[in-house]
Each structure stands twice: as C-alpha cells, then as structure tokens.
C-alpha cells in the first residue's frame, strides 16, 4: 500500500478528497458536474473501498463518459490516489486560476468579445476621429506590417452583397432527411391522433382529416476561414462572405484561424457591419502570419465542435491547404470532425487555377474526408455553389 497517496494532517475527510479528485479530473478535461461527486462517493460504498483496483474500476464507470476518457482515466486515477506515498498538500485545487477551454468555450469566446468591444469603444465616434486619425494610421502601418485592419479589405456594400449570397446558400442547405412527421395543413399521411380527436365532435364520423408531413430541417453552417499569409489575396471575399453569412443566418457560426483558432461569431453578430469587422480584426491578431490548418482544426474538433457541430451541421472550410502541420494531424482532425455526423465542404481558392492538383500534403490528406471540394475565390463563385449544395 506504499504507493497510495498520503494526505496532510489537516485533510478534512473522504468527501473532500473525492471532490478534490473530481476537480483534478475536471482540470484534465473531463466534463463532470457536482452530482457526480455524490455519485462517486455512493459508488464506493458498493465496492471494497480499501482496494485501489476496485475503486479505480468503480470511479471509472462513474466518471468517464467516452472512449478517450476511459483510456485516460487510469493515469489520472494513479496521479491523484497512487503517487508513490508522497504527501498531498492541497486537496481541493484553487478554483480562481482555471482557464479550461474544453468546458468554458462559450464564456471564453464571450470574454474575448467583451474585451474586443471595450478596446473598440473609441471607434464608436468614427466621424470625428477620422480626420485626425490619419497620422496615427501611418505610424501603425510602419510599426506592424503584419497587422492588417480588416476594414481596409472589406467594404460595407460587399457585405450586403455577400449577405444575399449567404442567404441563398443557407436556403440551399435545407436538410431533407427528417423521418419524423409533424402536423401540417398539407401532408402525405393522416394525423390519426387528431382525426380521432376531431371525429368526436362529429359523432365518430371522421369528417376532417388533419395531415402530417416530414418537416424541413435547416442546417447549421459552421464556417472556418483561413487568414494566413498565403490567403491574404482571397481574404477580402471570404471575410465579406462570413460577415454576410452571420447576418443572414442566426444559427451560423464562424471561426478564423492562422496559427490558432478564434471564434468570431459573437463579434460578427454586431449590428453595425463595419464595427463587427473592427472587432473581428482585433481578435484575429497575427492575421496573415503562418498557417496551422491541422492544429487549428484539431482544436476546433476537440472544443467548439462538441457544442456546435452535430449531424445537421455543414462545416465549411475556406483555405488553400498550405499547412505547416504534418498532413496526418489534419486527417485525424477531419476524421474526428466527421464522426460528429456533419458534412464537410472545403472551398479552395487555388482550385480555380487551371491544372491545379491538390498535391499540397495537407490538401491530399484532407480529400478523402470531404463531401465537397470546390473552387471559390469570388462571391460569384460562392453563389454558383448553390446547386451543388442542394444536392448534398
């Protein structure tokens, strides 16, 4: 038993140790609520709690929720309860310095949006600031060539045009797969429950025949746009498209990535289109730098996708496929994403070139996972995708 962790003298008892363990698991990305702590303690009363192997199995059944967590659990258990007889000082970790992206992704994104909003506040009075802001603008341009203001790239009327396109694409992406039926004025089947109900009023004679039909289900779009250096030329179109998309479709979701991934949905929902872009460019710092497609998509699949991507989602990736990560990372990320049941569309501006072959390592690795791989470098191209999306 010498392997078992010893606890400091002021240890407040088994319940506190258990909540400490649960906190330890949460820190390692397992999603557990308060109720699980009670359940875990309860579970231990049904096995021989003094036997570490049995405890591990019991807690594993309670605390793990998927294959990865189950595989990870043994190590986490050993780290907390069997650390070679060392004395554990702190039983319940400090809550204040936790910043887990797994659990709090929305709060995380909101936090960013709020931060951006504040930093952006002076921009509200653009009218006066414009005239004397010129000198400053030159200075910043010299100081930071890499930092681009997206407002220079995208014009307000482009957003309006993009909104039109996005609206049409969203409509094309109706999901017709629903097999359930709902009551409807015109339908292909009788709604028996209603027929019976209403026939009571006519003495059992089913005079009115309410119908039911399969409802159309809308699809959510999650757009992920590459804003690395190689994509700068096309960024204008794609960013306008993203802005339009989010304004046209209240369910849509948008992300930017270069070397890391940022969620820009909240920022782009701003009613003022230009202010939305300003907020977005503040968030996309490092814009036009290198690109880590694999890493960013992996991050997406592991965090945001768990909450926002389901079987009715279309993941739209806008990128040229030049990746600094090994292709295997990208392939693994897409496999993971695909397992959520979504459709994946990749729009590659380079594909529009004559004789283009997807030889870039990343692109080649991604191809087998894609439902649609198309060229797009202008708004017109995007609009032309409509019939393809209907068929999807």
């Amino acid at each position, binding site marked *: 038993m010498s392997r078992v962790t010893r606890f400091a003298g002021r240890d407040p008892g088994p319940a506190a140790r258990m909540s400490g363990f649960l906190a330890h698991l949460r820190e390692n990305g397992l999603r557990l609520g308060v109720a699980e702590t009670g359940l875990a303690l309860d579970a231990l009363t049904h096995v021989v709690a003094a036997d570490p192997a049995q405890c591990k199995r019991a807690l594993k059944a309670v605390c793990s929720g998927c294959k990865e967590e189950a595989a990870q659990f043994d190590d986490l258990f050993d780290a907390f309860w069997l650390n070679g007889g060392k004395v554990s000082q702190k039983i319940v970790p400090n809550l204040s310095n936790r910043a887990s992206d797994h659990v709090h992704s929305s709060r995380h994104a909101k936090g960013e949006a709020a931060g951006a909003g504040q930093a952006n506040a002076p921009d509200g009075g653009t009218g006066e600031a414009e005239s004397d802001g010129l000198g400053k603008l030159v200075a910043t341009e010299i100081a930071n060539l890499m930092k681009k203001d997206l407002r220079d790239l995208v014009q307000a009327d482009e957003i309006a045009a993009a909104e039109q396109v996005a609206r049409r694409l969203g409509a094309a992406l109706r999901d017709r797969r629903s*097999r359930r039926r709902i009551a409807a004025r015109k339908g292909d089947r009788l709604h028996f429950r209603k027929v019976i109900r209403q026939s009571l009023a006519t003495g059992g004679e089913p005079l009115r025949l309410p119908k039911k039909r399969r409802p159309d289900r809308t699809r959510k779009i999650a757009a992920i746009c590459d804003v690395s250096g190689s994509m700068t030329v096309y960024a204008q179109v794609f960013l306008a498209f993203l802005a339009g998309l989010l304004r046209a479709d209240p369910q849509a979701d948008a992300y930017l990535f270069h070397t890391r991934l940022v969620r820009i949905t909240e920022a782009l929902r701003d009613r003022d289109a230009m202010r939305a872009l300003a907020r977005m460019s503040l968030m996309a710092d490092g814009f036009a730098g290198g690109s880590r497609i694999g890493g960013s998509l992996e991050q997406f699949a592991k965090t945001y996708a768990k909450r926002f991507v389901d079987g009715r989602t279309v993941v739209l990736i806008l990128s040229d496929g030049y990746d600094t990560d090994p292709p295997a990372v990208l392939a693994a990320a897409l496999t993971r994403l695909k397992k959520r049941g979504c459709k994946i569309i990749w729009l590659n501006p380079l594909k529009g070139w004559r004789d283009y072959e997807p030889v870039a390592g990343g692109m080649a690795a991604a191809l087998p996972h894609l439902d649609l791989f198309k060229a797009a470098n202008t708004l017109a191209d995007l609009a032309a995708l409509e019939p393809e999306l209907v068929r999807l």
Partner: protein
Amino acid sequence: MAWTDLQTAMAAQGYVASDDLSVALHLALSLGRPILLEGTAGVGKTEVARVLAAVQDTRLIRLQCYEGLDASQAIYEWNYQRQLLAIRAAGEAGQTGADVEARIFSEDYLMERPLLAAIRQDKAPVLLIDEVDRADEEFEAYLLEVLADYQVTIPELGTIKATTHPIVILTANGTRDLSDALRRRCLYTYLDYPDRTTELAILNARCPNVSDRLAGQIIGFVQKLREEELEKVPGIAEMLDFTAALMGLGIADLTDDPAVLQATLTTLLKTQSDQANVTTEVAQRIAGRAA
C-alpha cells in the same frame, strides 16, 4: 451481491465479463443508474443485456433504435382502429361525447411501446436500448426525460409513474457522438476486443467440446487476424461462427488443410476487399504464427 458474484453468475450463463464491466454493471444495479456500453460491433454489448436479464431472472425489453424513431414507436401509441370502432359503436348506442372520450382515451386503448412497458412491470426488467446512436437527437431528449424521472406523461391520461425502476442498458457503437447530457446520466464502460485469455475463456464457455489445442489455434488465429488491416474486424460472434464451422467440418488442426481454412474464412471476413486481401498465403502465415 458483490461484483465478483455477478461476474460468476454471468460466467455461469456463458458470458465472460471483464473486471471493469462487472464492477460497472454491479454499480448500475446497486445505484439504479443506466449504463452506457460503447464499443465496436461484435464485442458482445447486446449480449450483456440478455445475460443480465437471465442472471436477474427477469424480462428483457428491447428497444432497437433507428433514425426517425419517435415517441409513438418508443413510448406509446393510441390504438386508432379500436378507438374509431368504439366511437361508432357508442354512436349507435346513443352515448354522449364526454363518456366516449373518457372511454377511448383510457388504458384499454393504449398500446405500450418498450419504454412505457419497461416502467410498468411488476418486477424490474432489463431495458436494452440498442444502438442509441442511430436514433436522432430529438429521441435522446425523450430518453433523458424517461431516464431522469422514470415517468411518462400522456396528455389524455396524466403522468404514469414507474412501478419499478428498470435496469437500463444503452449500447452505442459510435456512428455519431452522443450528447454530453446523456453520457452524464449514465455509467460508462468501453468494451474492447477481449485479450487472448479472456477470449479463450469465452470460447470454452460457449463451445466446451473443442479440444484445447484447436481452441488455442483458433484464438491465436483470430487475434492475429485482428492485427491485419481489415475493413471489418471480426468480433466474438464471428470467432464463435468460425469455431462452429471448423467443428462442423471435423477439423482437428488449423494448419492441416489450407483450402478448408480458406473456405471457413467466410465466417470471419465480411467484406469483399477483406476476403481478397487475406489470401491463402496470408491465412497460412497467420495460422503458422498462431500455432
């Protein structure tokens, strides 16, 4: 009952459960929680429910999930034909609307589906919700409601509370990710292909009259075959079919006749490309290493 007792009882029914699974099932029984079993096809997830029902000497109620499964197939449905007849009959007899309504929306006209049936048994049954990942997300929401309170609300009848809490087993093989809410509600065990000793124990439990030598060869062969690059990796059921095929052909040694071995591989390899990839030479190599 301790978890080891459960393990022994399941072994007596011909199911060799790992320690992980036994503890999890034991907890599911004693805490009254649903248990989610995940794993690839052919590792014996569904079988767990059947064996558990036999061990507990209770009914097994099975709900097979599929896309589009909805409340009328999973929880309850009114018997519309009978209702219509009853209304007509009542009309002839000159009964009033309120009486008729009360009658046709009574239990006599209610058709139980698995979820409702499971909470209305006298003895807690085993409720198997098979391949829950095939059903769509709306169904998960129904399921959560039933699993949380063990009650079903029927607008015309009121709320039906569970007489006994069923032992709920959900299985999934990962066609899509389940919602976190559902996962949280359940205990969880991931079932993997068994290791050599466990699989040998399964074989001995199911086919007691296989010679030790052949049993060892079969398990060795199947375990090695799983390491090959296959589209559909053979599960335990396939291994048992393979054994039955060899027994039926009266084979005593796997390496005896390459042609026969190749012919019996149809029980293990279920896609055309797998069959094309495992040629006679490959099969002989694997059999040779396994022996």
